[in-house]
C-alpha cells in the first residue's frame, strides 16, 4: 500500500505542519508559491568572495579524505580537498564534490516520526525528539530489567562513531553489535591478518612502486582507500611504472592499465600461486627474505608451489600460460619496487580468503613486503582507545556472545576484528534463533544492499513478531527507514564530529578530524548525540557512563591527551587544521625494527619468539634474529605467515581439513558450472557507494542506470542485442549456506542488457547502488512533486519540474536495477565473507 492512498488531500496550509500532524501537505497548497531556486544561495561562483573554509573530512565513501568545506552565511556551498591530509593530499573525487547535495535535499528526514498503521505501510506521525528518546529508552530499559540486554540489537553500516555506539552497547550490557563487514571486505582483511597480522587495508607504497600487479582492485574508481593510492599511482605512472590488471570486467582501472587480463571468476589464487611457482623456478625469489621473515623454508615453499604450474593456472583461469609466466618474471624483476594487491573482487568468492593470501604471498616471494615501493603497511593513528583514550568511567566489556554477532560456524569471522557474518542475521532473526526486543539501525540500508535483501531482509523487518521495535537513524527516507517504527533524523557528515583516519598511505601515523561546517537543520541530530541523550534517560549504571553534555564534549575529552601545538590544545588544533601527522619516519621494514629496552621490560624468549608477561598470560612482541630482539610481524610466529596455525585450527573446529597453507580450490559452483550457465558478478561505479549516494542529484545525474554487462559473443549466441530486456535467473551455490546440488532457483529478474567486449564471455556484471524503491525523487527517477512525508522539510525547493531527465516518463532510462533481488546469501567458509561473485545464473531474452 502506498502512502498516498492513505493521505487525504485536505486543504492544509504550511502552518499546519506541526507536531502531531499525520496528514501531510496538500500538493496544491505547496504549489501556491513559496519554493525558490537554489542557485542564488548556493552558487559558489556568486558567493566565492569572503567564503569561510572549514577543514573537515568527507564521508561519501569510507576512504575519509580530508576536505575543506566552503561555507557562507551558514550554508555549505561546496568542498575542496584539504592539502594537510597526508592520505588524499588535497584532492577529492566526484563523490566528495557531489556529497553536498545531501544537505539541502528535499526528501531529507528533518523531523522525528513514529509509525502509524502497519510496519512498512509508510504512515507516519511527526513527534518531538524528546518523545523519541523516551520511546527508545523505555524499550531498552524494559529489556535490561528483564535480564535480557542482548535482546537489544545495534546494526550499523558505515558507522564511524563506534566510540559512542560501542560504549552505549557495553553500558546496557548487550554484545549484539552487527555490521556489514562480511558484505564488504572480511576475507580480504582476514588474508592480511593471517599473513602479516595487520590491516586496515593493504598500503602499497604506490608513489615509489614500479610494477603494480592488480588482482581485481578498481582503485581508480571505487576501491576503499583507492583514492590516496590513485594520487600516488599517477605519480608512479609518470615515472614509468607498469600496471597490470586482472578483472572479469573492463573497469576504468582495467581500461587504463598497461595490460588487462580477464580470468574466469575465482581463479585469482591459481594465477598468483602459479606466478610464485614461476618466480621460484626461475630462481628470482628473495631467498633471504623468505628464510628470515617467513615461516616456511625454501624447500617447503617450493614443495607447496609445485603443483601450481602456469599450465594449471591457465586451465583454471582461461588465460595463456605464457602470459602468466611472462608477467611473473616482469614482476619479480621489478622487485622490491613492486606490489601484488587486491581489493573486493578476488576475495568475494567462497575461496576468496586463500585467493587473497596467495596474492599477498607473491610479495613475500619477491621480498617486496614493507619495502620502499613495495607491499608496505603501516598504521593509522586512529586506533580507538590506544590512540585517544575514552573518557572514564568506562562501562565493563560484555562477557558473553550470541550467535547473531558471533556465529560459531565461521570461526575466523571475529578472530581479529568484529567482522560478524551479517548476511545471515535476518534469516536468524526471522527463524527466532535469537529473540530481539529492540533493533536499532544506523547508516544501513539492508533491504537494498543485503543479498536477497529485497526478500529475506524485508520479511524479517516487516514481521513485528520477530522485531517488536525498530528505531532507525538516517539522513534520507531509505529502504531501511521505511521498515522502522521510529525515525530519527540524522546529521549529515557536514554537520557532525568524528575522529577519522585510515591506513596511512604516507606510512606515517596520521589522523583527521571531522567537524560540523553547518548546524544540523530543523530537528536533525547527530546519532551520537541522540544515543548520549537516550543513555542519560536510562537507569544507573548506564547513565553514569554518559556524564558529558554532548558528543562535542566527548570529542574534547578524547583529544585532550594530544600534546599542545602552536599554543592550541588537541581539540582546537584539529578544528583549525583538520589533520595531524606524527613526527616519525616512514614505516619501511617495520618488522626489522629492534625492540628497545622499555619494550623488552619483563620479556622472555621461548623458541626464538619474544614474549611479554601480561598478568597470567603472555603476549608475543617480537622475535630473535641473530641474537637481536626485533619486532617482526604481528602474527603468532612473528613472521610473515605462509603457513597459518590460526587457519588450520579454525578449520578443524568446523571439521574441515586444512594444512594451513593458501591452497587454491575453485568453488564447486564455478567448477561445475553448466555449459549454458554464466557467473553473475557485481561492481561499483566511480560516483556511487552501495546505498548512500543515489539520492544525491549531482552523482545520480552522472550514473542513474545500470544495465547488465554481457559479452558480445555470448549475447550473439543468446540472440541478445544492446538495450534488450533479458531475464536473469540465479541458482543457489553447490556448497555452503542453503547449498543445492540440484540447482535450486533463487529468483529471476528482468534487466536491460549492455552488450560489450569489456566483460569475460562467461560473466555478466550488474552494479550495486541503483534501483531504489525509496529515498526520494532522485534515486527513484520520478519528476514532479515529492511524496508526502511529515519528516520532510516544509518547503520543497527541488520542485523544479523536469530536472530528472532519466525519469521513464520523460523518455529516460529509469532508475536502474538492484541485483540483490537475485543474489543468494552465500557466506564463504571460515571467515563468512559474502561470495558476491560466485552466483551461477542463466540469461535469456525476455
Amino acid at each position: 500500500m502506498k502512502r498516498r492512498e492513505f493521505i487525504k488531500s485536505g486543504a492544509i496550509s504550511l502552518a499546519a505542519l506541526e507536531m502531531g500532524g499525520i496528514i501531510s501537505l496538500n500538493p496544491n497548497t505547496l504549489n501556491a508559491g513559496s519554493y525558490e531556486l537554489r542557485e542564488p544561495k548556493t552558487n559558489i561562483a556568486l558567493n566565492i568572495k569572503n567564503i569561510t573554509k572549514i577543514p573537515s573530512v568527507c564521508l561519501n565513501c569510507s576512504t575519509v579524505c580530508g576536505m575543506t568545506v566552503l561555507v557562507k552565511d551558514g550554508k555549505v556551498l561546496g568542498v575542496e580537498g584539504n592539502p594537510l591530509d597526508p592520505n588524499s593530499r588535497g584532492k577529492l573525487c566526484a563523490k566528495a564534490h557531489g556529497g553536498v547535495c545531501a544537505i539541502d535535499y528535499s526528501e531529507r528526514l528533518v523531523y522525528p516520526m513514529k509509525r502509524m498503521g502497519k510496519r512498512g505501510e509508510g504512515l507516519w506521525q511527526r513527534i518531538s525528539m524528546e518523545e523519541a528518546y523516551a520511546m527508545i529508552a523505555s524499550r531498552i530499559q524494559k529489556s535490561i530489567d528483564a535480564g535480557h540486554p542482548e535482546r537489544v540489537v545495534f546494526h550499523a553500516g558505515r558507522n564511524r562513531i563506534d566510540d559512542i555506539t560501542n560504549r552505549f552497547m557495553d553500558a546496557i550490557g548487550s554484545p549484539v553489535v552487527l555490521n556489514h563487514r562480511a558484505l564488504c571486505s572480511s576475507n580480504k582483511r582476514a588474508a592480511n591478518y593471517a599473513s602479516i597480522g595487520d590491516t586496515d587495508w593493504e598500503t602499497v607504497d604506490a608513489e615509489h612502486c614500479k610494477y603494480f600487479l592488480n588482482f581485481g582492485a578498481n582503485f581508480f574508481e571505487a576501491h576503499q582507500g583507492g583514492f590516496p593510492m590513485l594520487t600516488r599511482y599517477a605519480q608512479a605512472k609518470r615515472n614509468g611504472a607498469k600496471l597490470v590488471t586482472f578483472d572479469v570486467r573492463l573497469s576504468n582501472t582495467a581500461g587504463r592499465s598497461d595490460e588487462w587480463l580477464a580470468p574466469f571468476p575465482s581463479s585469482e589464487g591459481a594465477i598468483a600461486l602459479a606466478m610464485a611457482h614461476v618466480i621460484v623456478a626461475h630462481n628470482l625469489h628473495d631467498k633471504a627474505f623468505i628464510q628470515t621473515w617467513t615461516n616456511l623454508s625454501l624447500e617447503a615453499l617450493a614443495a607447496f608451489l609445485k603443483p601450481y604450474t602456469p599450465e594449471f593456472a591457465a586451465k583454471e583461469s582461461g588465460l595463456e600460460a605464457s602470459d602468466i609466466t611472462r608477467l611473473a618474471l616482469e614482476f619479480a624483476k621489478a622487485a622490491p619496487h613492486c606490489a601484488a594487491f587486491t581489493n573486493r573482487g578476488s576475495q568475494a568468492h567462497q575461496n576468496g580468503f586463500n585467493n587473497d593470501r596467495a596474492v599477498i604471498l607473491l610479495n613475500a616471494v619477491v621480498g617486496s613486503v614493507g619495502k620502499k615501493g613495495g607491499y608496505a603497511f603501516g598504521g593509522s593513528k586512529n586506533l580507538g582507545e590506544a590512540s585517544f583514550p575514552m573518557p572514564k568511567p568506562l562501562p565493563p566489556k560484555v562477557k558473553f556472545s550470541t550467535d547473531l554477532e558471533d556465529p560459531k560456524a565461521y570461526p575466523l569471522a571475529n578472530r581479529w576484528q568484529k567482522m560478524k557474518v551479517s548476511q545471515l542475521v535476518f534469516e536468524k532473526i526471522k527463524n527466532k534463533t535469537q529473540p530481539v526486543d529492540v533493533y536499532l539501525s544506523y547508516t544501513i540500508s539492508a533491504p537494498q544492499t543485503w543479498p536477497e535483501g529485497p526478500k529475506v531482509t524485508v520479511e524479517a523487518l516487516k514481521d513485528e513478531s520477530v522485531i517488536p521495535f525498530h528505531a532507525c537513524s538516517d539522513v534520507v527516507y531509505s529502504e531501511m527507514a521505511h521498515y522502522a517504527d521510529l525515525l530519527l533524523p540524522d546529521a549529515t557528515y557536514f554537520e557532525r564530529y568524528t575522529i577519522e583516519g585510515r591506513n596511512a598511505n604516507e606510512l606515517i601515523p596520521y589522523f583527521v578530524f571531522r567537524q560540523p561546517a553547518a548546524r544540523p537543520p530543523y530537528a536533525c541530530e547527530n546519532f551520537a548525540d541522540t544515543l548520549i541523550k537516550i543513555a542519560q534517560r536510562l537507569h544507573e549504571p548506564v547513565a553514569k557512563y554518559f556524564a558529558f553534555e554532548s558528543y562535542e564534549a566527548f570529542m574534547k575529552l578524547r583529544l585532550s591527551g594530544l600534546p599542545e601545538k602552536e599554543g592550541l590544545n588537541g581539540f582546537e588544533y584539529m578544528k583549525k587544521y583538520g589533520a595531524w601527522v606524527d613526527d616519525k619516519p616512514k614505516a619501511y621494514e617495520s618488522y626489522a625494527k629492534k625492540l628497545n629496552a622499555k619494550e623488552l621490560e619483563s620479556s622472555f624468549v621461548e623458541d626464538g619468539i619474544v614474549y611479554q608477561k601480561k598478568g597470567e598470560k603472555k603476549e608475543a612482541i617480537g622475535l630473535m634474529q641473530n641474537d637481536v630482539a626485533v619486532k617482526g610481524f604481528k602474527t603468532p610466529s612473528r613472521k610473515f605467515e605462509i603457513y597459518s596455525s590460526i587457519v588450520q585450527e579454525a578449520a578443524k573446529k568446523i571439521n574441515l581439513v586444512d594444512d594451513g597453507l593458501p591452497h587454491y580450490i575453485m568453488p564447486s559452483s564455478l567448477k561445475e558450472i553448466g555449459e549454458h550457465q554464466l557467473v553473475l558478478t557485481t561492481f561499483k561505479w566511480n560516483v556511487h557507494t552501495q546505498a548512500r549516494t543515489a539520492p544525491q542529484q549531482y552523482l545520480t545525474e552522472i550514473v542513474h542506470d545500470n544495465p547488465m554487462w554481457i559479452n558480445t559473443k555470448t549475447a550473439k549466441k543468446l540472440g541478445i542485442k544492446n538495450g534488450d530486456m533479458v531475464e536473469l535467473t540465479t541458482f543457489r551455490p553447490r556448497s555452503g549456506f542453503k547449498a543445492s546440488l540440484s540447482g535450486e532457483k533463487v529468483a529471476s529478474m528482468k534487466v536491460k542488457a549492455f552488450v560489450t567486449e569489456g566483460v569475460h564471455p562467461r560473466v555478466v556484471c550488474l552494479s550495486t547502488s541503483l534501483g531504489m524503491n525509496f529515498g526520494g525523487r532522485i534515486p527513484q527517477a520520478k519528476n514532479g512533486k515529492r511524496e508526502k512525508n511529515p519528516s520532510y522539510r516544509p518547503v520543497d525547493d527541488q520542485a523544479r519540474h523536469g530536472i530528472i531527465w532519466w525519469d521513464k516518463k520523460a523518455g529516460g532510462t529509469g532508475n536502474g536495477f538492484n541485483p540483490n533481488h537475485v543474489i543468494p546469501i552465500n557466506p564463504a567458509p571460515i571467515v563468512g565473507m559474502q561470495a558476491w561473485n560466485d552466483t551461477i545464473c542463466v540469461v535469456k531474452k525476455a
Partner: protein
Amino acid sequence: MCTQCEEASCLKACPSNAIYEEHGIVKIDEKKCNGCGDCVKACSLGAIYVNPLSKLAEKCNLCAHRLEIGQKAACEATCVSEAIRIIDLSKESLPANGVGFTMRSSDKPRTLHIGANPLMREKLTTGNPFSPYNYEISNWARRGS
C-alpha cells in the same frame, strides 16, 4: 573542454553579443544571452551548450571567479593525476610538447594538450555538444571506439 580560442567561433556567432573575451577567457554574459543556440552550432568541439533548465548558454570559463581570488580552477585543484594546469605566462613558459587540439584548420585554441589521442576527434562533432543523453550507457558503444 573549451579551448578558449582566439577569434572564438561562438563569440562571432552570437547575435546578441553575449559572448566576450576577457584576459584570454571566453565568457558569457548571462544577462544578454537569449538561449538561441547559435553558439552551440558554431563550436567545433561541442564545448558550449544550452542549459536545459536555465535555457541559457554555458561553457567553461576557467573558473574566472576563483582565479580572481587567487584560487586554482576547480578542475585543476581537484584533479587526482594533476592532468590539468592553468599556466600564468608571466611566471612560467608553456610546455614544449603541448599542442593545440583542433577540429578545423580555422580553430585557434589557447589550451594545449600533451599526448591527446587523435581518436578523440571521432567523439567530438560540431553542434553536438554536451548532452546528458550522450552519457547514457546505451550510447557508450556508439560514441567512438
